[in-house]
């Protein structure tokens, strides 16, 4: 069984774009270990020749015609933004 370490939790938190305190890391390490430990029961089942199910309906490549349609205006797209400038979403700098 996979033992989950604090370093792993920190790495996963970074991948998930979550800021975690040392206290969070401690709690999440315990919680995730317990849940993953519980999930290990799936290994009781031999699934070697079983196909995975992604969706229950047998739908494939559902497409509609690629036609331009009226949707939302630039103004509407920006109206719920926490910060904007000159018709754009504004974010803090990417480079330090």
């Amino acid at each position: 069984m996979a033992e989950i370490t604090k370093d792993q939790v920190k790495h996963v938190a970074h991948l998930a774009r979550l800021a975690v305190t040392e206290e969070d890391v401690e709690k999440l390490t315990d919680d995730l270990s317990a849940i993953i430990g519980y999930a290990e029961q799936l290994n009781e089942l031999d699934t070697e020749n079983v196909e995975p199910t992604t969706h229950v309906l047998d739908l494939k490549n559902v497409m509609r015609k690629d036609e331009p349609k009226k949707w939302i205006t630039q103004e509407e797209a920006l109206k719920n933004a926490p910060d904007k400038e000159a018709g754009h979403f504004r974010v803090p700098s990417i480079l330090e």
Partner: protein
Amino acid sequence: MSLFDHTIKELEEKLHNKEITVQDLVDTSYNRIKEVDDKVHAFLTLDEENAKAKAKELDNTKDQSQRLFGIPGGIKDNLVTKGIRTTCASQFLDNFDDPLYNATVVDKLNNEKAVTIGKLNMDEFAMGSSNENSSYTPTRNPWNTDHVPGGSSGGSAAAVAAGEILFALGSDTGGSIRQPAAFCGVVGLKPTYGLVSRFGLVAFASSLDQVGPITRNVEDNARVLEVIAGHDEMDSTSANIEIPSYTENLTKDVKGLKIAVPKEYLAEGVAPEVKESVLEALKVYESLGATWEEVSLPHSKYAVATYYLLSSSEASANLARFDGVRYGVRTENADNMIDMFKHSRSEGFGEEVKRRIMLGTFALSSGYYDAYYKKAQKVRTLIKNDFDKIFEDYDVVIGPTTPTPAFKVGENTDDPLTMYANDILTIPVNLAGVPGISLPCGFSENGLPIGLQIIGKYFDESTVYRVAHAYEQATDHHTKRPQLGGAN
């Protein structure tokens, strides 16, 4: 007696005969909310001014033929509503006051002239089984406010049970319509995956999520489903099938119906009083000419683990969109963009949401994908096959909706795994994609409702409703009302 003790069909007739007005119905709703919602906390946002204006307008309309004309309903707060605040009960979306469009199901309700009373409380981003994960004041059970209403559509079920609205829309990913319906003594249906459009439903686990109705009786439920079901080109997983008239097929009998009862659904862990109520219900079916046999869903004990791996994985991807750039609450504690993402998310999301994002990100991460995510997808196939096999020989599967009646507030919050185990009887249905309904089948010793779950074949909601209706007509559980004080 409240106007809301009538069926939608009866109210339609009263409106038609000018015995009542739409304004009476909408007033009934807001008056009741004022009377009880400070105890129940079912609503997060009310749209009173618009609803009252709409009621007036509808009263002056000549054509009153629409299927939900003037009927007051509520919308779970993870369905976007143009111009009405939509929060998913998350602090991240606390300022999302003005969504740009309506979910398809909301447009469909509007087309049939239903009146939206407000937005309903829930577990944050639909992750939870008790409403205790709402980042606002959690909803309480109208039958006993020391108990939870269930979740995640707890606000939807509680509002209908408390007589605040006639119907509500909820969403069900692992039991989130059926479990609160059972806890609150109302009728809730999770449709077949793909029957109802998910466009405008804030995605939790896209391969499992379905929108469905919660009502006080089966007939109303069938009517609301008729309105919201159907193909939508905005949802690529929406099924392109003909929608039958569920209300027309409702009254046929159940003579000769073959019922399967999984032994796993009446096993250890199911409270004796719940088991007893279900066995009583089976006797009712026998008296109506149906037969039942014990069967096995051998993989159902793996459903909870499978579900938490798959739904959390999907959630970790779906919730990546909450980045603090285009909408939502942005942190004030960040100098660069990556930190802005991290802090906005950590400040905006509650504990359970973060735990599931972490679990899902872990299960999808390099080196663990095959062992957890793919393994769970394969077990999902086995669970689906269990149902396929049973439905070769039986018309419906019947069992309890939940192992126990509503638990107490705070009782299950310490250990996530105990909380997750609540969904053991509802989760397999989502994993298989088949439809399931919960309806009241009795009360516990301390007066809390017990839910009967009826599971049907793919897209066979007609049979599910007919079987539910036959039981409802033979019993009177659905006529009982919670005593919250005041005329109900």
